[in-house]
């Protein structure tokens, strides 16, 4: 396969392929972070995760239009505003959903599965009614398109780099919030022992709502970032949901570090296999490997040891 190529050509292809793997990694981290927080900390399986992402994407679309029509001078920077709004809208909707629906189902995990799945259908149809069934095109500012020309042969996509930076910042923010703040301590206390946390005066209902909102908000930011690399349509969220669950379950449902490790493992193996095999085959092999590992280690890569 490589006989006809010079060493420099091969080097640059491998460099770009390495970057492709890293950018897939950051996409996975972004997708999975919100779900992992909700699933890991609350035990709620949020089937509407993809639709929260698309809410972020549509927010970005609307912001882009708004800037184009009213603030064309600031169009170059609209994306940052869009991401902030995406976070706020998705988090607000998340808080509302928690209050109206999820909190009544905490002790019935299978029912939350059904309820959030129903919610995802409702949201999809709502997008379809509001924005139309067709996909919308989100216009990007000029500076976010194209690639850095590192050498003659190596090109690094700017939007890939941008997604990577967002993913890392969010991972860092979540880490600080969960492990270095008072609020994070409360969340962890609730996860480890709910009655005891209540007994020491933590408002567990409030913690639940904020956690759910945070998870949904991060999904919104992810959706906003994905307008750069994917489609924005009523059912686009479905394209991400399988990979998202894969990453979270493989990583160990209760562990945020596990999610990151699992995102890294899956993305690297998938992008390497995609390079040497065909696309569908790579996907099959990835899924197969994950299934086998989960059979041997049902709790996922990183299991959090908690006393129940």
């Amino acid at each position, binding site marked *: 396969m490589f006989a006809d190529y010079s060493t420099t050509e091969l080097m640059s292809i491998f460099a770009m392929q390495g970057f492709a793997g890293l950018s897939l990694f950051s996409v996975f981290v972004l997708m999975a972070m919100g779900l992992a927080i909700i699933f890991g900390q609350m035990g709620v399986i949020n089937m509407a995760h993809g639709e929260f992402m698309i809410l972020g994407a549509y927010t970005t679309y609307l912001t882009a239009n708004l800037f184009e029509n009213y603030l064309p001078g600031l169009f170059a920077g609209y994306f940052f505003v869009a991401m902030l709004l995406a976070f706020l809208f998705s988090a607000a909707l998340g808080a509302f959903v928690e209050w109206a629906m999820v909190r009544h189902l905490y002790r019935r995990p299978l029912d939350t599965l059904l309820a959030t799945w129903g919610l995802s259908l409702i949201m999809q149809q709502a997008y379809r009614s509001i924005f139309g069934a*067709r996909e919308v*095109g989100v216009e990007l500012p000029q500076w976010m398109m194209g690639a850095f020309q590192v050498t003659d042969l190596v090109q690094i996509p700017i939007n890939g780099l941008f997604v990577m930076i967002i993913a890392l910042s969010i991972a860092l923010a979540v880490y600080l919030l969960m492990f270095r703040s008072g609020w994070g301590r409360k969340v962890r206390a609730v996860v480890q022992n709910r009655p005891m946390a209540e007994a020491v005066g933590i408002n567990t209902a409030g913690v639940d709502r904020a956690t759910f909102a945070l998870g949904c908000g991060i999904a919104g930011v992810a959706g906003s970032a994905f307008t750069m690399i994917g489609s924005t349509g009523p059912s686009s969220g*479905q394209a991400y949901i399988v990979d998202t669950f894969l990453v979270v379950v493989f990583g160990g449902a209760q562990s945020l570090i596990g999610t990151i490790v699992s995102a890294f493992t899956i993305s690297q193996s998938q992008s390497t296999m995609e390079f040497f095999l065909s696309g569908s085959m*790579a996907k099959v092999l990835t899924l197969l490997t994950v299934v086998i590992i989960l059979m041997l280690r049902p709790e996922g890569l990183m299991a959090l040891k908690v006393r129940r």
Partner: protein
Amino acid sequence: MKSQTYRTTSRPRRRLLAGLAALPALMALASPVFSAGPPTAEVNTTGLAVTDDTVQVGILHSITGTMAISEIGSVQAEKLAIKQINESGGVLGRQIEFVQEDGASDWPTFAEKTRKLLRQDNVAAIFGCWTSASRKAVLPVMEQFNGMLYYPTFYEGLEQSPNVIYTGQEATQQILAGIDWAVKEKGAKTFYLLGSDYIWPRTSNKIARKHIEKKGLKVVGEEYYPLGHTQFNSVINKIKLRKPDVIFASVVGGSNVAFYKQMKAAGVDFTKESPLLLTISVTEDEIRGIGGENVEGIYASMKYFQSLENPNNEEFVAAFKEAYGDDMVIGDVTQAAYLGPWLWKMAVEKAGSFDIDKIREASPGIEFKKAPEGYVRIHENHHLWSKTRIGRAQTNGQYEVVYETKELMEPDPFPEGYK
């Protein structure tokens, strides 16, 4: 036994029945005659929903679910055609009324709704389906109850049903002309085939590969990605490594958006044509979702582009925009869907009857000169003779037509080696 039952009906009652039987005739005499067409009993011998001044047809597309994105254009085109036919006097003097059902992007639902349309509504024709999967689901029902389906999408071929008229192109019409063009006009020697992983791209690429290899040229890669796949960086690197002259793409749906955005981001400038990208799956409809700036310079091989310059098309585009708004775009399939009701009307009028069997017999050879794409004719095999065009995408989301086949391409749903 028979005479006995006869006797159970008393004389006065029998007279009453006779009187009732005469009633419709009386009413027909009393009411003014609206329709100029022939009497219903003559044009409808199989119990279809045809009255003296109306005829019912079915529209069956997904207006909810994943496929709604693609199918809504078809619904709009079919309704427009029906409206125009009605304004010009209807079919055999009868106004067309439609029953619309939602296939909901779910194939069993398509089959069920077809059954409903054929058995309960007794529609005279169905305009519908988009994906091959939905057509395959509907097919047994159409054949069992002898309906007539007008199917608008370009598709993989390998099918020919007495109960379907295929108004889109089958694979060879689209592909052979496209590849010939790339070889002749652009001097292409190596090809990279890339598609979503299901029957249409796989069959299309099989046909493409055969045609390319017959010319002594080379396929340097063939690859499929699952539907909905959103990460194309690896394959983009592979393409960069293999340096094909042409990327032959049949990626569909949301994957399309990801693919073209990532190509652009990876520094591939399609306007430079190295590699040249030739697609059979991106219509003006898809470009709306992808963004014109991301596909500028790609080529598409299809039978229809909105920018075609001929009087029929200008009229059609104007009417479509008037009906649905100025920002509407019309893709290949939308135009093909528009042909459906017209071809049906012509078949009915040629046959002088709404009966399905007579329409089937009358259909081959029907010419539609007012088609937006120019001129089409129905082949013996129920597909259309049509020209194939190559368009080049521009930033405004429209294609500029750069080439068109001189002759109509003959539909060949069962190409050599696939029988």
